[in-house]
């Protein structure tokens, strides 16, 4: 009953309903975007796009699924689009960052790799690199299951797949990561 009322409030675009929606769901969406490998600025842009898309689709939202599931479904679609858009920029940013990083504080070319690389923990580097090899659905499914503890039903709704497909996605995600980590540093011990 409460969900139906909340859905009606959101369809009517009541400010208090929108504020509640944003306050309750920004953190999980933002952290999921970071978990998908986006930088903070991109993650914030993504979260904003998700809420804008939600409000545009609000007249069709009838409260059959929770707003959270609906929002994560939008995040899944938007993240694929943003990743495609960022693909060129990322490769250019990496070249620029590497180039800049090879000059020391006096502006002299340094043969050493950038110090930033040494600051990152080995685990974080390897896990994030390996996660980069996963497809969008595999990465989101793995993140939502392991970090957010989402249920199977909720994951199926978010990704728009059947339970059988979700099992395959999780199996491939976990084994790709396991194989990748094993190859790099002897695997998770």
């Amino acid at each position, binding site marked *: 009953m409460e969900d139906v009322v909340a859905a009606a409030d959101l369809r009517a675009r009541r*400010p208090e309903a*929108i*504020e509640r929606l*944003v*306050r309750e769901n*920004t*953190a999980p969406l*933002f*952290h999921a975007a*970071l*978990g998908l490998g986006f930088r903070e600025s991109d993650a*914030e842009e993504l*979260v*904003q796009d998700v*809420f*804008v898309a939600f*409000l545009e689709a609000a007249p069709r939202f009838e409260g059959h699924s929770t707003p959270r599931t609906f929002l994560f479904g939008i995040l899944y679609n938007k993240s694929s689009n943003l990743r495609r858009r960022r693909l060129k920029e990322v490769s250019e940013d990496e070249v620029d960052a590497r180039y800049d990083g090879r000059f020391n504080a006096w502006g002299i070319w340094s043969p050493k790799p950038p110090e930033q690389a040494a600051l990152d923990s080995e*685990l*974080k580097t390897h*896990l*994030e690199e390996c996660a980069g090899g996963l497809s969008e659905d595999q990465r989101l499914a*793995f*993140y939502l*299951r*392991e*970090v957010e503890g989402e249920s*199977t039903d909720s994951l199926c709704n978010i990704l728009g797949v059947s339970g059988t497909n*979700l*099992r*395959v996605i*999780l*199996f491939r995600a*976990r*084994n790709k*990561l*396991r194989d990748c*980590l*094993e190859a790099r540093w002897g*695997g*998770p*011990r």
Partner: protein
Amino acid sequence: MKAPICRHACRALAEGALESGPQALFFRFHLWYCWYCWPYKRQLRALGDAAREVWGPRRDTRAVEDRVLAQLMRPPS
């Protein structure tokens, strides 16, 4: 070589298929005692722990919420 039951049980574990279903109890019991499945089970558990360690720490998103709300509440131009 692992016995076929190990292959099926480890696959079910990676699929997240041990929550319910007719074979879940059987596989859970197998994974509980099987010496050969133990390293795989340990690796998947470590993978989940690593993911929570890397992506789990919560950041304060109040400023992000405020910016999102400001954008959503902006009157249409």
